[in-house]
């Protein structure tokens, strides 16, 4: 091995601290060579090692009767009965998507798909959570269009439907857009594959695309904050090839149907380095690889480049000794490169050779598991109190309720996302029972009578104002979306997007958010089975709002017992479950109409939440509900408007009366009190349903009737009715909501 003088500049380039370097010296008992230094840099990056978050993540509840695989593997798995598992995970591709939106988003989809089919599951659904700046900015429009096209380009070609998601537009994300992708697959419970290098002497086989010089140090780039020079990092972004990934998927599932496979892992962040050392580390074994056998795109690649390339669509597998030919023939059938590149050993080390000469030798566990763990200092930001202070008396109540409602429906965060989801194939695989546009996507599970409901959610503004409550609400709202489809939540994946963890205020947000996730998951009895942390979402010292994105999976035992959010039939009675309070802090209303993002977000009582959800699920399962919709951004008025205009087969009006009960009018119409659901029920069943709800201890009221060509809300007990009543033609309402995003993009 060549001697190398490690200078502080080289360490800085590799994002390793002096202290971390001393630890490396201790592990190796010598100076690392260039390749070894690169491997440590990638594996000990924040992205791969979770060094700032790990001690906190341990607090999350990860077990439960349905959990088949918890965190730590490529994805989590929960039992859905009938011998099947739902395998799912959510991941971020924020940094690359800002640098190169199309390829950044596309390879984000590619990466999460590999995580799912690596486990032996056929992916059946993708969802995504996106955050952008305001659409007034030409650059943001470019990012939105690039990211949507990238997700579409990859997912559509793979034949995995993108069935749902959510998008929030807020200037805080202008230079740090978030691209979080969720994927779910179905596997047989007894055929889950893990990333382990078991069986000394077994062959280590590489298959998929060739290794090129792209994406080198992607993991390190994703663990850094940005400045004006961000665009220069474009070479660290990989280029996706969904066609090869489709071949990889089919080849993997074909191999897994046999019995020649021992362990398998995709080459994602940190490429061959992470797959090799993680597979060995999990099993306590070692691997020895001959790098000249790695299929390469070009000659002259150094061990450093081969080990740190993040070329896409590659897999590493350990097969049973003597079964190499079977593996090779399946890969060849699918026109994939394949090569035996090494063997499993008992040394506990990753040993790399080039033409038989050792070029790197590192303990696998040290790379995979012994990255330093930091308990970074945390403290509330100095501005927190100021943020939370909101004097309601200084806010004039709403004067023009029609205008306010239209302004909210026009806000891209609330407006119809049809422009986005029409670019995604959301029906391929013919499982999509409820398409994008309702609270949750619903997919039947072929071969069973069941269906799965899927939802992703997070309100970053709530998390900024109160990280603990905001995170609780993210879990609760996701579960509420599922409840509105009649689904019982069975598992969570998270994608925790935060700023720079070396800032105490960011760590404070992180620690409180994890507490909130923990408490909400425990109260709702739903475990977190997989996840991802994305830190350093910061540009020019400005961090994003804390955004702990949640993806949740719900089970519907009888597929036909599900409902959607839109009203079904004139004459149906509208019920509101839950209590409305004066919750104006952190609302979309306050942002859009008063240009303020402050106050205390709505506070959530987990017992009340649980009761509302359980009651809704029970009623839907009993076939007593025509439609169910969660009240969230924009409050009750927006939720009711969406019930009228979001259906795929035309609009239906509603006549609603709301008692003021001493509340402000804006709080009643647009406040975002939690734990509320709008139901519509058949008129002849309304009384009985209402009694059942009240018997369950859930506050509920009959608030109106479905029908007519207008959307009307009358506030009862209001002395100043003029101008304070919502009364709008459905077409006006629909046009504003449906055309907002195309209009903002100049495309209508």
């Amino acid at each position, binding site marked *: 091995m060549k001697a190398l003088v490690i200078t502080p500049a080289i360490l800085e380039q590799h994002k390793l601290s002096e202290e971390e370097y001393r630890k490396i010296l201790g592990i190796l008992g010598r100076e690392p060579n260039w390749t070894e230094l690169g491997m440590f840099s990638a594996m000990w990056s924040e992205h791969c090692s979770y060094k700032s978050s790990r001690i906190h993540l341990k607090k999350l509840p990860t077990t439960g009767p349905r959990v088949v695989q918890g965190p730590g593997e490529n994805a989590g798995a929960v039992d859905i009965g009938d011998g099947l598992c739902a395998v799912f995970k959510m991941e971020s591709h924020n940094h690359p998507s800002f640098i190169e939106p199309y390829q950044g988003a596309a390879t984000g989809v590619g990466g999460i798909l590999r995580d799912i089919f690596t486990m032996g599951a056929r992916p059946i659904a993708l969802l995504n959570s996106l955050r952008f700046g305001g659409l007034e900015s030409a650059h943001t429009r470019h990012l939105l269009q690039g990211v949507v096209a990238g997700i579409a380009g990859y997912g*559509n*070609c793979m034949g995995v439907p993108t069935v749902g998601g959510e998008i929030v537009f807020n200037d805080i994300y202008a230079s740090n857009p978030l691209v979080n992708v969720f994927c779910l697959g179905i596997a047989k419970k007894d055929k889950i594959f893990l990333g382990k290098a078991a069986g000394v002497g077994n062959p280590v086989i590489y298959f998929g695309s060739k290794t090129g010089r792209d994406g080198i140090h992607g993991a390190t780039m994703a663990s850094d904050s940005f400045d004006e020079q961000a665009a220069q990092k474009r070479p660290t972004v990989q280029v996706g090839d969904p066609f090869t990934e489709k071949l990889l998927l089919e080849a993997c599932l074909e191999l897994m149907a046999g019995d020649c496979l021992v362990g398998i892992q995709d080459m994602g962040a940190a490429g061959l380095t992470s797959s090799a050392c993680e597979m060995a580390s999990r099993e306590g074994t070692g691997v020895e690889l001959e790098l000249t056998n790695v299929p390469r795109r070009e000659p002259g690649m150094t061990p450093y480049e081969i080990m740190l390339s993040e070329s896409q669509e590659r897999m590493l597998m350990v097969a049973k000794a003597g079964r190499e030919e079977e593996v090779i023939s399946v890969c060849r059938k699918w026109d994939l490169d394949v090569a035996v590149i090494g063997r499993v050993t008992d040394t506990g080390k990753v040993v790399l050779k080039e033409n038989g000469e050792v070029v790197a030798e590192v303990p696998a566990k040290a790379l995979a598991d012994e990255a330093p763990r930091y308990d970074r200092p945390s403290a509330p930001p100095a501005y927190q109190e100021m943020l939370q202070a909101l004097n309601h008396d200084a806010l004039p109540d709403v004067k023009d309720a029609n205008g306010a409602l239209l302004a909210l429906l026009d806000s891209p965060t609330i407006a119809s996302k049809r422009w986005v989801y*029409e670019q995604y194939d959301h029906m391929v695989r013919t499982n999509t029972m409820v398409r994008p546009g309702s609270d949750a996507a619903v997919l039947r599970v072929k071969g*069973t009578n069941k269906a799965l409901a899927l939802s992703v959610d997070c309100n970053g503004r709530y998390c900024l104002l109160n990280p603990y409550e905001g995170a609780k609400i993210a879990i609760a709202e996701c579960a509420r979306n599922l409840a509105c489809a009649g689904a019982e939540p069975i598992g969570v994946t998270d994608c925790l997007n935060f700023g720079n963890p070396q800032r105490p205020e960011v760590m404070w947000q992180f620690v409180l958010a994890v507490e909130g996730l923990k408490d909400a998951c425990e109260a709702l009895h739903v475990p977190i089975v997989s996840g991802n942390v994305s830190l350093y979402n910061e540009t020019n010292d400005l961090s994003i709002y804390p955004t702990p994105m949640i993806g949740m999976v719900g089970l519907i035992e009888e597929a036909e017992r599900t409902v959607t959010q839109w009203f079904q039939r004139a004459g149906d009675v509208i019920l509101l479950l839950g209590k409305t309070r004066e919750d104006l802090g952190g609302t979309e209303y306050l942002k859009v109409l008063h240009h303020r993002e402050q106050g205390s977000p709505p506070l959530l009582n987990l017992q009340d939440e649980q009761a509302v959800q359980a009651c809704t699920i029970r009623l839907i399962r009993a076939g007593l509900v025509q439609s169910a919709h969660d009240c969230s951004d924009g409050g009750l008025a927006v939720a009711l408007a969406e019930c009228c205009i979001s259906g795929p087969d035309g609009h239906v009006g509603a006549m609603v009366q709301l008692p003021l009960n001493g509340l402000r009018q804006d709080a009643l119409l647009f406040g975002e009190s939690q734990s509320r659901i709008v139901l519509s029920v058949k008129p002849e069943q309304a009384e009985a349903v209402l009694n059942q709800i009240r018997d369950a201890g859930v506050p509920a009221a009959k608030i109106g009737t479905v029908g007519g060509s207008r959307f009307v809300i009358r506030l009862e007990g209001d002395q100043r009715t003029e101008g304070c009543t919502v009364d709008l033609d459905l077409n006006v309402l629909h046009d504003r909501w449906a055309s907002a995003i195309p209009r903002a993009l100049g495309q209508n």
Partner: protein
Amino acid sequence: MNIGVVVFPGSNCDHDCAYVFNDVLGQSVQMIWHKDTQLSGLDAIVLPGGFSYGDYLRTGAIARFSPVMRALKAFADKGGLVIGICNGFQILLEAGLLPGVMLRNTSLNFICKDVYVKVENAATRFTHRCESGQVLKIPIAHADGNYYTDPVTLGGIKANAQVIFRYCTAEGNVTPAANPNGSLDNIAGIMNADGNVLGMMPHPERSAESVLSNEDGRLIFLSMLSAFGKSEIRARPVGA
């Protein structure tokens, strides 16, 4: 009825087509690998949707050179029933089994949504279970569905009643606004002169089950079945 579903590398609606014929309609289905050169014992062949060979070049331009295509042509020449859906339609055009070409959608975007198509000719082996002029709701999902051909060919296929489906409104009016992709004359599906090869952009396999809230597409498959004197063997329960 024995159905063959061709699997090109990059096909992604192959399972869906097999599911409809096998699990929903109770017919026997065989997957045909793109390298196969012998086709035997089949009554009909499906070219499914997807992105054959990635479609990084023009859609279907590479798939037409697959070994299976020679056998498929021979099968069609002998009168065998062939249906190409979406990418399958694009491949049939590239292979010269149907006239015309596909351009990018006028929006330049991929479009996935329900559309309405009018059955222009109900006297075919693919549509005889429909009424003439019947409006079917069937989803599309493509980026290259903008059908184009020269005026002479267009005149010919119209005169010969080879235009089978045209994009229309829910009420059955064939209007520019009802055209999702800029397709010439709102054409959504055409047939060869012999009446045994159909290409269509909409996906009937996505609208053939009540659990998906739409069974309009089923009429096309039922037409194919009854062309062979078969009927569906069993209606499967929800989700099954």
